[in-house]
């Protein structure tokens, strides 16, 4: 997969291609799920609920997605944040009646910051950098597996990873300085 094929898949899905939608789901599901785990402070039940809602909402609103404004991953993460906020609000209403659990949740929320920044940084990286970083750190693939998947040499993958990490550091610092 490259940036062009993602753009093509987005365009085709906007025109109603079910195949394109399935491709987009496969490409982004793991990354979005990991982001939701971080968003939910490690609570997998909430992460699954948010992830499920992200893809259902995205499938309903994909025709509104404008690639000039953001990348597809960044758009999905934005939906995830909104859905999580909705779930949190709903939970907080319940928590008013269960004050004991409130403190625990607020602590979990406080831990979310750095995790989200990592995912937001990834979403802002150039496509080839994000793909190689996710292949290594999210899916845990070896250099050999990544090189065979991409049809590149191991040296080329190593070099790409170095550049991807350098760019990650730059964007990550930018995000942190803004917040």
């Amino acid at each position, binding site marked *: 997969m490259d940036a062009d094929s993602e753009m093509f898949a987005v365009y085709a899905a906007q025109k109603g291609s079910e195949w394109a939608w399935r491709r987009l789901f496969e490409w982004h599901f793991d990354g979005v799920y990991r982001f939701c785990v971080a968003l939910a402070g490690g609570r*997998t039940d909430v992460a699954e609920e948010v992830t499920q809602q992200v893809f259902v909402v995205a499938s*309903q609103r994909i025709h509104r997605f404008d690639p000039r404004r953001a990348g597809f991953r960044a758009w999905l993460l934005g939906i995830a944040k909104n859905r999580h906020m909705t779930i949190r609000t709903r939970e907080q209403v319940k928590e008013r009646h269960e004050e004991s659990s409130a403190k625990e949740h607020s602590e979990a929320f406080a831990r979310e910051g750095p995790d989200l920044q990592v995912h937001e940084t990834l979403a802002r990286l150039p496509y080839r950098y994000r793909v190689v970083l996710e292949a290594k750190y999210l899916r*845990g693939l070896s250099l050999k597996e990544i090189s065979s998947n991409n049809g590149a040499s191991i040296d080329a993958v190593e070099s790409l990873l170095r550049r991807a990490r350098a760019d990650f550091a730059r964007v990550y610092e930018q995000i942190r300085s803004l917040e």
Partner: protein
Amino acid sequence: MEDKDVDVQLNQHLSGDPPREAFRQEALRDSTASFIRIHRRRSARRRAECAVAAVLIAGIAFLGGRLSAPPPLPGNVDIASQAAAESEGVAVPGELLEWLDVARLFGRLGMQDRMARAVEHAGKLMPVDIITSEHRSGQVFAEHQKEHTESMSIPSPPPSAESISQILAQSLGD
């Protein structure tokens, strides 16, 4: 931020248990079903919008056509008679014209009796009001013609033998 720190950071936040396969399949099934449902609904809505737009365009075109037409004629005015009056012509049946053509043809062929019958036949087809007005105008015309002829005709005496011989002598030089 060092390269090593980045490696640690990414390892720390991205590594972890992958999503359950059952959950992945469920999410894929639900989102795909929603995708198909929404797409069908949008297609149906787009078709309905096109139909409404077509009806609106047709309606506007119809109204535009009606409004651009000249205002309706008042009450019981007979359009045919008005058109005839405006063009200062006389409406006659087409059959009458055909009989006249036939009569002209018989005339050219020298069949006088047949020509007369054709003219007679055409005369029967002449509208009554035209016959009346023609008759009246014919009478007027005849009277007028008669007066004109009378006024124009100057009574002159028949030329005498003397005057003829004078003219001939002047012409011949005698």
